[in-house]
């Protein structure tokens, strides 16, 4: 077997293993991180998306305007 073929095989193997490990770790994050927060939020009646239909206007006040320069260095 040539070294090139060996390298390719190892690369594929590593990729597959990393996909499996990543998936397992992310599943843990999802069920523990997201899941537990979801349960607490449900218990206190908190919602994260505004989906309720109502009678009044749906416009929300935004008032987005020029801010101090320092706020634009932030990613939020």
């Amino acid at each position, binding site marked *: 077997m040539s070294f090139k073929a060996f390298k390719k095989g190892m690369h594929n193997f590593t990729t597959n293993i990393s996909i499996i490990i990543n998936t397992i770790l992310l599943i843990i994050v999802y069920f523990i991180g997201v899941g537990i927060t979801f349960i607490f939020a449900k218990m206190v009646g908190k919602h994260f*998306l505004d989906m309720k239909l109502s009678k009044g206007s749906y416009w929300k006040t935004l008032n987005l305007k020029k801010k101090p320069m320092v706020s634009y260095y932030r990613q939020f």
Partner: protein
Amino acid sequence: MYILGISCYYHDSSAALLKDGKIVAAAEEERFSRKKHDTTFPDLAIKYCLESQGITIDDVDYVGFYEKPFIKFERVLSQHLECFPLSLKVFLSSTPSWINEKLRVVSKIKKSLKYKGDILFIDHHMGHAASSFLVSPFKKAAIVTVDGVGEWTTTSYGIGEGNDIRLLKDIQFPNSIGLLYSTITAYLGFTVNNSEYKVMGLAPYGNMDRKTNPWYNKLFKVVDVKDDGSYRLNMKYFKFHWADRMPSHAMCSLLGGPIRKPESEVDQRHKDIAAALQMVTEDIMTKILNHVHKETKCNNLVMAGGVALNSVYNGKILKNTPFKKIWIQPAAGDGGTVIGVVHYIYNTILGNKRTYQMTDANLGPKYNTEQIQTFLDKNNIKYTTFKNDNELVKTSAKLCHENHVIGWFQDGMEWGPRALGCRSILASPCNPKAKELLNTKVKHREKFRPFAPVVCDDDAAKYFDCDKPVPEPTDYMLMVYPVFKKWHKKIPSVTHVDGSGRLQTIRKHQNPRYYNTIKEFGKLSKIPILINTSFNIRGEPIVCTPHDAYKCMMGTGIDYLVMDKFLIKRSENPKDMWDSEKYAID
């Protein structure tokens, strides 16, 4: 002062460069990478921007990014928290890219570009607002931005005055007209964020009567619209907030059947649904615009966001709302926010006076006569050289009049999704077989899709029932107007089934060769209108380089290529012929 704007990771990646208040270069990454709707970091577009000015990244004073990534991340995590455990699949598929790319914009920009300066992050909808207002001819205007979603905002309105922009109110995710349009696009079996304009083109084949279209009232079950134009989606009919599909089972039941398989037949029900969607969208937008006019008391309107590319509705705005003037940037979608980012930094944040107004979209790479001739000679391509502009214009017009299809490669590549006479395919609209000819030879498009006309600005009002004076967005094919009835049979190839046309108006100063060719064609045919369609192989982005243009001609049935002052005839270069249709992927 140089400011570089960057957008990437979600929709069409792009870059724009501003120099002392003026946009000097802008382009989408896809044109260089040749991957349609390329979302990766726009290395190549940035390289073009810098090289066009002969500068390096060290000359750039600021780099601007088109959104606030952490706020977007907050919204995404909120979706997972609201929809647990349904969103597991998308969590697993999308989270890696957040960790690896989307939360690492600062380090990516610094490492990729070796940039040592500051990076400014501009709210997404502010980028949209600025991309239209700050390059418009208006000192003061009402601003409306409507897209799928940015960070949280999907729709907003406000006022622009001088250098300042204030977005007053918004509607937030998951409530979104853009996502409603995309959901029905997906339901109709078309690709999302790529084919919404096809659904817009399909609508006239359906029942456009609000009283008798059965789906019109049904669609109002999926969206609650108030008199002030504000709206909320009934999320029972959607699943885009937790799944990798958009319409839910409830939507499929409401619309009388499952999601259409992409290659299956588009039947009358689909056409009627497309029509209903277009009418619902127009009704919501009209309510929004009427409300905005009332709140802002401005007669000027600028629009941005992907929904502002709905040119059928745009053509009705001045007739159906109190606004008197309108301006929309040619790249109104997400790729266009880079224009807004650089101008917002220069004019609003840094307080510099506005001195630039966008009057054409020729912001991409241009190739001079020497470069093109070198390419032709190096590749042993047979060509002839026009003696002067007059000969070029007369020959091009004559070829179109003789029902040939010509590729037209001139000047700087267009900014935005439309070809506007720099990277275009031209043909005669008087030929009733032109649509079939173009579809067979070149474009291989769905039968229901119309081709678009280009007309000189001083002739537009003769052929089209357009607003007067012709609004500037028409220069960027952003307005659809009715073709006067007496011309329907004379220009059948650019008259849609409902008698409308998505025209491009060209003004002489924008592109004299193009303008003169159309006029010359008019002398021969008595109708100074040409078909203008984008110069590309099916499934590929619009051509960018002379190589792309030549390759496209040789892989399709385009008869001639007019590239700067050179004429290349396809049949004289048989060694380079190939069949692009074999390899085309939509």
